[in-house]
């Protein structure tokens, strides 16, 4: 009973301290752009020749990773259902460089044979005005087939989307 006021004071102090921390943390977080849905445009690789399976794997992995990140409305290139969505964000990806690498060389030497693909990602609104632009690199250095570089890219690109856009879940 004697220690009750002390415990109460300690509790009050901890509550004040934790709420202050939460407020400070909230100030540091960047404001997210509202996104009703994301549409993934086809991967462009006009200047850098990329095998068809890499181009398709980049696109498909990007869609899967965006869905995993909590974007419930992810539209594919050309999908007519995306036409009337409010706050639609379009992700344009252009391959800048591609190094095929070799899974065999990776497994045998562990230092050589890395596969890497560098992609310029541009998030725009429906009118085509750029919202965010980033260069993202997908790599596979040790384990896995060459196509795993596309998975690495998709994880990073979806991470950028998650950090900068807040899905509004409106159709």
């Amino acid at each position, binding site marked *: 009973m004697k220690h009750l006021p002390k415990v109460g004071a300690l509790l009050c102090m901890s509550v004040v301290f934790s709420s202050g921390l939460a407020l400070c943390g909230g100030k540091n977080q960047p404001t997210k752009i509202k996104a009703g849905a994301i549409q993934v445009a*086809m991967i462009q690789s006009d200047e850098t020749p990329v*095998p*068809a*399976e890499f*181009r*398709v*794997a980049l*696109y*498909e*992995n990007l869609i*899967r990773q965006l869905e995993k990140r909590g974007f419930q409305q992810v*539209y*594919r*290139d*050309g*999908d*007519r*259902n995306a036409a009337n969505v409010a706050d639609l964000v379009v992700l344009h990806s252009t391959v800048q460089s591609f190094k095929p690498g070799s*899974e*065999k060389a990776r*497994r*045998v030497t562990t230092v050589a044979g890395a596969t890497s693909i560098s992609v310029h990602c541009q998030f725009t609104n429906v009118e085509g005005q750029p919202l965010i632009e980033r260069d993202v690199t997908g790599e596979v250095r040790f*384990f896995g*087939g*060459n*196509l795993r570089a596309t998975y690495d890219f998709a994880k990073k690109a979806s991470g950028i989307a998650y950090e900068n856009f807040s899905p509004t879940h409106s159709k």
Partner: protein
Amino acid sequence: MTFRSTKTFVPVALLAAAIVTTAASPQQIPRAVKVVQLTGLPGMKENAKGILSVENGDLHFVHGKAISDVSASLIQDVVTGSDSQEAVGKTVGIISMAAPYGGGRFLSLFRNKIDTLTVEYRDADGAFHGAIFTMPVGTAEEIKKELIAQGAHTFSSTSADKEQKQ
């Protein structure tokens, strides 16, 4: 005279029928290939093993009870490629990394060649999809030819077209 001619006619007719049946059978029975669907088919898991065939104008993939069909007429491009995979399975390959004296690395030298087949298509809503398959060497080109014969489009020529050009 009638008996003789009938006697010769029956075997000849049977032989002709056999030849016609043999020649027609590859078209009637669709070729099914054991493949791995890496990604892209709706409703299918990544790296799903199954049977791929071209039937009634569709690219038909069966994985267990799950079935996926893509109409050949919706296919915009079919691209074949080549790759390689470890001769030993993935699990053995990973376990063998722990083998002493670089035994695992030695095993990694043994690899099987495989074909890749990439199919790009648009669904009824106009949405773009891409599916990637790996399959035994020499089978991807046959699937591609069958798809083109049943209405699929492609930007890259088949090996037969390349031979004709040369």
